[in-house]
């Protein structure tokens, strides 16, 4: 049995808004091949499992329907590792300013 997610949980739903054949004309080839997809978060209207068709209440008070894809979805964007192409810049420009200071 898939785990039941209680009503009122903050969740994310997904749905296809336009299938490839329904998309606007004059799209680049790579975009025309894929559907227009929507993801939105809100509070789950009734208990459900991942993959179910559900309704949510959004932060603006709307009811939207879609496939339940995540419960309490995390914000996963971050920074990543320091980038070698940027790391030496501080030392380089400080050295330039110090050299200029000595000349004056």
């Amino acid at each position, binding site marked *: 049995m898939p785990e039941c997610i209680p009503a009122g949980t903050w969740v994310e739903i997904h749905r296809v808004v336009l299938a490839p054949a*329904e998309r606007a004309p004059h799209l*680049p080839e790579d975009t025309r091949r894929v559907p*227009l997809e929507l993801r939105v978060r809100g509070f789950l209207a009734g208990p459900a499992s991942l993959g179910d068709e559900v309704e949510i209440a959004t932060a*603006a008070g709307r009811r939207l329907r879609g496939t339940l894809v995540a419960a309490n979805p995390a914000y996963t*964007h*971050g920074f990543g590792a*320091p980038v070698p192409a940027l790391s030496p810049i501080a030392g380089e420009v400080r050295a330039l300013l110090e050299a200029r200071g000595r000349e004056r």
Partner: protein
Amino acid sequence: MSDWPAYGEIMAQRADIVRAAVGIDYARYATGALAFDYERLLADCGYDLESARAVQRRTGVGNTPLVELEHVTALVRAIAAPGKGARIFVKDEAANPSGSFKDRRASLSVHEARRRGYPGVAAATSGNYGAAVASQAAKLGLRCIVVQEAFDGRGLAQPEIAEKTRACEAYGAEVLRLSVGPELFYVFLCVLRDTGFFDASLYTPYSILGIETLGVEVAEQTRAATGRFPDVVIATHAGGGNVTGTARGLRRAGAVDTTVVAASVDLGGLHMASDRDFNRKSFTTGHTGFSVPFTTWPDRTDVPRSAARPLRYLDRFVTVTQGEVFYATELLAVLEGLQRGPAGNTSLAAAIPIARTLDADRVVVVQETEYTGAGKHPIAQLTLAQQLGIEVVRGDPRGNLPGARIVVPEHPAQLAVVDLDLERLRRSYLRNASASLPPGVRPGDADLAFLAAETRTTRGRVEEIIDGMSRTT
């Protein structure tokens, strides 16, 4: 919304939906086949400089610090000829409530939405503007919906937009995240029709008048700090609002001799509606994918007549490379203690080579910063770029190739701007204007005068260019 109406059905209702959602009857301002009364459109919106400032004061928008970048200036003078190297200042717009100058654009729109009794506001934007509208809506007690182009067909989110999603949700907004494509506008129209919310468009008069306060502050604060108006103001340029509002504000404050420079990141070769290119841009705004089309034809927005009309105000339009902007962002952090950008630092990257050519007693103002954070940082963008197979190297920035190679300069003397030919952009605008006329209709007197004002040239020159086009096509 129980289910989604058909694409064609919604697009056919576009004019009615937008009219109800912005509350402006644009047809009233038409004065010719092409022409409309731009100044009256702006004047009729009911806000002058003082009332705009009063609205912004109440939500803590504006009056941001003007900070002299003494170390960046010293670095410029280290690479400049003797006697050269203008003083560089930055207007620290990150000090606005949601962290960017976009709060100025949102403030009058949201104020107007509440004054007219709309139940909420909606905005189609993947950028700082969403956070600004959500923040202002929270402050004024309105509901808010933001529609973003946020991820590609593989589900990979652009990190800077993921941060805007988080910010908008933090301010209590509903955020609709979409995959890549211009049908975002269809989804936005569905939202407006479903909710009856106000369209807090980036391109209404409210949005532009909200930026005029920034131009006025730049003029006033620069004169207080240096005894003169700025010689050059550099604005990061995308949809044209920033340049338009800032230039209008400068003029309003009397800084009529200030040179207004628009700066964009060169994204030549990447397609703005391409699913594949979406995450290969490394910049979400301030780039040529927006600025060139919006300069050569402003009326491509969510409202019938854009109040952002950049060609009327540009003295110069320059591009810089992706790697140069990341380098400038690093300089701002390590030399001035300001972690800002990166996209907003496009104008800073342009300021360095421009200040280098000017006399040392001149003053250059970079007219905005924006907040930085997770996803919205050079490291986040370059990490994603490397994941997608884009080369990130040090070297001569002329070797930068959008989508394939980002070249971070090795020395500040390598920073340069590339001037776009304004005459070519004017011709392109006039070609687009002619193409928008119904078949067989020639521009009338009012149209020719309008096109001259739009392109900052003479009526005779407009006629000459249009006649030349009809002979060659």
